[in-house]
């Protein structure tokens, strides 16, 4: 089952990390551009006031996904297949992130969107690319009022638990584990791609304690549906820009199937 036709379902993760997403492109002319602003609460920051990599990846997935989804209308809606984000820093000036997403390529089966991220002083912070598969939901393509707007603004962000604490990600000595609960599902009814990215970040940090993911390439191979979801990291090597870790994600409750592969760089 999907939550694509009920705006209240499948958006908990997006609301938790926050972000006010607005469509600004000339949609009547076929142009899709999304801008977003997120005022970061303590729940998505670490002890050094840096944005948690998993939260940044989730926001990139949300913004790039909305852009790709709107671009895929009326043929279908999108599900993330490949997310790449390169962050120059995770230190966020003024605690504000601004996003801009544009369509790079719109194909029959896939759409590629760029995501540029700047901080509250308009300095570049990260650059991302999201590839999404265009699928037709069983109960039809969702209808959107255009220009689209999604206000994912938590009412009391400083009262929320820390992102990873809320997710319940834990290190059990054999990688990190996440139990799946309904709030973690996206509008398709599967675990949000940003949550999977956060689990990947946590698995990387388990391999390189004290470091944070700055570069990530995530291939989403199959949905995480059942759980527990387990991510195991393997150090590949060290370079001047950080430690490179390969992470494999499996849905243990779904015959332990491989659901994502990632290579991340932590520093």
């Amino acid at each position, binding site marked *: 089952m999907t939550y694509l036709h009920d705006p209240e379902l499948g958006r908990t993760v997006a609301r938790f990390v926050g972000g006010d997403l607005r469509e600004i492109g000339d949609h009547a002319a076929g142009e899709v551009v999304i801008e977003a602003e997120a005022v970061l609460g303590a729940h998505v920051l670490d002890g050094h006031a840096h944005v948690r990599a998993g939260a940044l990846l989730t926001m990139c997935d949300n913004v790039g996904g909305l852009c790709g989804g709107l671009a895929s209308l009326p043929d279908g809606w999108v599900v993330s297949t490949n997310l790449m984000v390169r962050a120059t820093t995770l230190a966020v000036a003024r605690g504000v992130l601004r996003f801009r997403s544009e369509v790079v390529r719109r194909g029959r089966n896939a759409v590629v969107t760029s995501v540029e991220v700047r901080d509250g002083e308009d300095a570049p912070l990260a650059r991302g690319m999201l*590839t999404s598969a265009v699928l037709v939901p069983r109960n039809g393509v969702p209808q959107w009022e255009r220009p689209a707007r999604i206000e994912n603004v938590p009412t009391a962000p400083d009262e929320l638990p820390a992102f990873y604490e809320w997710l319940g990600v834990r290190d059990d000595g054999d990688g990190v584990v996440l139990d799946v609960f309904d709030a973690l599902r996206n509008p398709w009814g599967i675990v949000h791609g940003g949550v999977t990215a956060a689990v990947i970040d946590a698995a990387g940090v388990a391999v390189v304690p004290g470091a944070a993911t700055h570069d990530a390439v995530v291939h989403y191979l199959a949905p995480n549906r059942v759980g527990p979801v387990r991510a195991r990291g393997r150090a590949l090597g060290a370079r001047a*820009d950080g430690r490179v870790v390969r992470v494999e994600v499996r849905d243990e409750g779904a015959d332990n199937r491989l659901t994502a592969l990632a*290579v991340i760089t932590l520093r």
Partner: protein
Amino acid sequence: MPVDLSVYPPPEHMLRDLALEFEHRASGESFASLPLTEHVCNAAGHVRAGIVATAVDAIGGGLAATAAAPGWIATADLTLHIVAPPAGTRLEVLGRVARAGRTTVVIEAEVRGNRGAALAGMATMTFSVLERRAGNPVLTPPDEEGSENARQMMANDGSGFGQCAYDAFGIAETRAGEVQLTPAPYIENSLGAVQGGVLASLADAAAVSALGPGFETVDLHLFYISLAKVGPIRARADVLARGTGWGSVAVAIDDIGAGRHTCAATAVGTQS
């Protein structure tokens, strides 16, 4: 699965000069190797990232085409992480299918040198599944592992570079951070566009040009947007960040003659 080499690549082609060798294994994995000559290495003696990407793309293409049969494939994205220079006289790549779907195939590959067992890098690629068209290479199943048609050698008599491989591809620096090339049959893929590995080499050359002397590319992420067919094909790299001994760049590759964006890439370079 082996490709009918009488169809692609043509006798004079960069894949033949790279002297790529393939071994298709019954396990479904494919193994590729090429000699690490001075012409595929930088001044520090390390194989260039674009050459590694070319080998990875070639092995990934073979695996993906097999998984997509009877359809054909095109590279959608390629990421490469090099963690140490491959040591030895040959570059070795072992690839396997991570996911074979209706519209995409995802490949993962390990990169090593032939001396020592240390991993030198990893690559992942997504291939889009296309409808087969006339002129697409034909795949022939190997008889058995180790058989004649399970091993393939790209080199012809006389194959090999007489100069730096990037010069042979026609890559020329136009100014700091900007390089370009002209499409030619020598660097084309089976779709008649500039080969994905050559575009990776172009991105690598632009990144190194932008970061400055002494840098070499260790990370490449490429998203292939449209075919590069007309030319000139120009890559422009802009520095995103610099740290101690490393820098990252964004690379835009455009087909100037066609007036379209061909490839979006980012790269990380470290000082060798």
